[in-house]
């Protein structure tokens, strides 16, 4: 499988603030969701991959070209749809896309023709000569996608493409992303909306505080937590929690009386019944926990944050009496 980009120990800091801490990852072609909380380093990573930010340490290759030397060649093969509005209101959509195409090295004629094609493709054929200042949010998002695709990139970075869209607009945007991806264009989707990732992506790259905390298929993300069970009892759930904790079983959540129980490695579901019997509580409901992407994401994030806190605590100098 073609490698989109490969980072080895890449570090980027802004003064004292380290935005990317020794990132090492190899990402193959496909549709990848770029996830992470605010300040995780997603935008810095995208700008680094575009060759716009020079990293302080490490090595990076994008589409077979080394950074920073290959920045211009890389940007010619990449499409970028920024998160925020970035158009001059009196520009028409066709002018905007033609300009974007020409900046990528297309001839004026080709760019103009292709701008029309892309605007038709994203459903803005009728509005292509309208000034963009008159566009709705959905139209603006679509024209940004059109300019990112105008030069036929191999990889597109989409930063929050469904931001501000109504459900219908979101469906349309996701349908476009799926179609682009199906035609062999790799897509990197940076978003906070995990539903969008589930709808479009086959893999996810999770960042937290400038570090990769997970990279793999969406299924693998959920599989990490397959030894989980959702348990409800008739009454006194706290008694079951205490009994399970005595047996070294982890209780992850307690949502309105529903316990999410994580069995230890090799642990059998019978352990839960045994604990319930010893605590004299009646189990009313017990099913394997169906992990959503959101829950999986939050779990992975929580684990990463706990691991980081533990590592900080262990590296802190001990206080002597």
């Amino acid at each position: 499988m073609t490698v989109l980009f490969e980072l080895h120990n890449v570090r980027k800091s802004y003064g004292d603030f380290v935005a990317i801490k020794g990132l090492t990852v190899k990402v193959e072609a496909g549709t990848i969701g770029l996830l992470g909380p605010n300040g995780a380093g997603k935008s810095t990573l995208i700008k680094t991959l575009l060759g716009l930010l020079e990293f302080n340490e490490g090595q990076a290759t994008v589409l077979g070209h080394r950074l920073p030397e290959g920045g211009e060649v890389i940007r010619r093969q990449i499409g970028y749809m920024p998160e925020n509005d970035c158009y001059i209101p009196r520009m028409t959509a066709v002018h905007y896309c033609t300009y974007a195409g020409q900046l990528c090295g297309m001839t004026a004629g080709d760019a103009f023709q292709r701008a029309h094609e892309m605007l038709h493709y994203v459903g803005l054929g009728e509005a292509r000569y309208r000034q963009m200042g008159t566009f709705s949010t959905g139209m603006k998002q679509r024209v940004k996608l059109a300019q990112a695709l105008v030069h036929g990139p191999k990889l597109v970075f989409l930063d929050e493409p469904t931001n501000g869209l109504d459900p219908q607009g979101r469906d349309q945007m996701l349908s476009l992303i799926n179609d682009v991806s199906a035609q062999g264009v790799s897509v990197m989707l940076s978003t906070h909306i995990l539903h969008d990732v589930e709808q479009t992506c086959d893999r996810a790259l999770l960042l937290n505080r400038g570090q990769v905390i997970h990279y793999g298929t969406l299924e693998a993300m959920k599989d990490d937590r397959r030894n989980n069970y959702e348990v409800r009892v008739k009454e006194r759930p706290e008694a079951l929690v205490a009994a399970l904790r005595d047996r070294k079983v982890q209780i992850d959540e307690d949502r309105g009386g529903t316990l999410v129980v994580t069995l230890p490695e090799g642990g059998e579901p019978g352990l839960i019944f045994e604990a319930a019997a010893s605590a004299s509580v009646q189990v009313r409901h017990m099913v394997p926990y169906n992990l959503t992407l959101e829950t999986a994401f939050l779990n992975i994030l929580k684990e990463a944050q706990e691991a980081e806190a533990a590592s900080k605590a262990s590296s802190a100098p001990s206080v002597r009496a």
Partner: protein
Amino acid sequence: MSIRDQSYKNYEGTLGAGSPLWWVVATHSLRLHWHFVRSKLLLFPIYFVFILFILATFGERMLAKTFGGGLGADPEAISGFYEYALGYLQVWVVALYFASSGGGVVAEDLRYRTIQLYFSKPLGKADYIIGKFASLFMLGSIVTLIPTLLVVLVRMLVFVPSPSFSDVALKLAAVVGYDIVMLAVMCLMMMALSSLTPRTGYVVLAWAGLMLIPSVVSTVVGLVRTGEEWPGLLSVAGSLGLGLKTLVGYEGFAQPGQLAAEALPEYMTWAPWCVVLALAAGAVGILYWRTSKLEGIA
């Protein structure tokens, strides 16, 4: 839900075969400047002034033939005052036109964040700056170089049979050269101001302040120091005007009964060009500083 009747098709053409990127930036930016209705409306009064200059050429020639005139032994010799007036007027024409349509040259890219989009393409900072400069230069040329060349053409044709033709041609060539330098300096100054803020209104205010306030000051000082020209060095327009005098000659500014050599100014004749050069260098410095501050841009 589909909003398309066909699948995405990849672009099969060659990338990199298009125009140089600075030219792409220049042409598209010019299109944006030209988009304003005021850009087109202002052409009427500006071109009217140039038409007056063309009419003045015929008037001057008619008067010289009827009554004699000019300098020294040649009754048809020219003083250079016409060329000075033609060149000096253009400082204010450019100032007005840039205030009307050029203030957003960089400021709009900062305000509307298009700058981050442009630099996500294979566009370098140098291409961007040269392109923006070229767009302003072309915009300014519409109201300076193009009409000046028309005036020059008419004036040359009028003076073809005259013995002072070569002198006229030299002075007009000086005006055209001056136009290019003046326009380049004004473009750099406007770009520098425009790069300092995302608000076009502030750029226009700063531009008006830069052009008007020193001019008022230099006029006041000039009134106090009657007969001295150095106060012109205190303003952009004055310095450019004094620089123009060094090109077209001082004959046209001699007092009645004064010899041309006596009309030489009291300051060093290269001083106006030093001021112009300093303004240009300052503008380039600001642009360099601003572009080096743009994080995340190639």
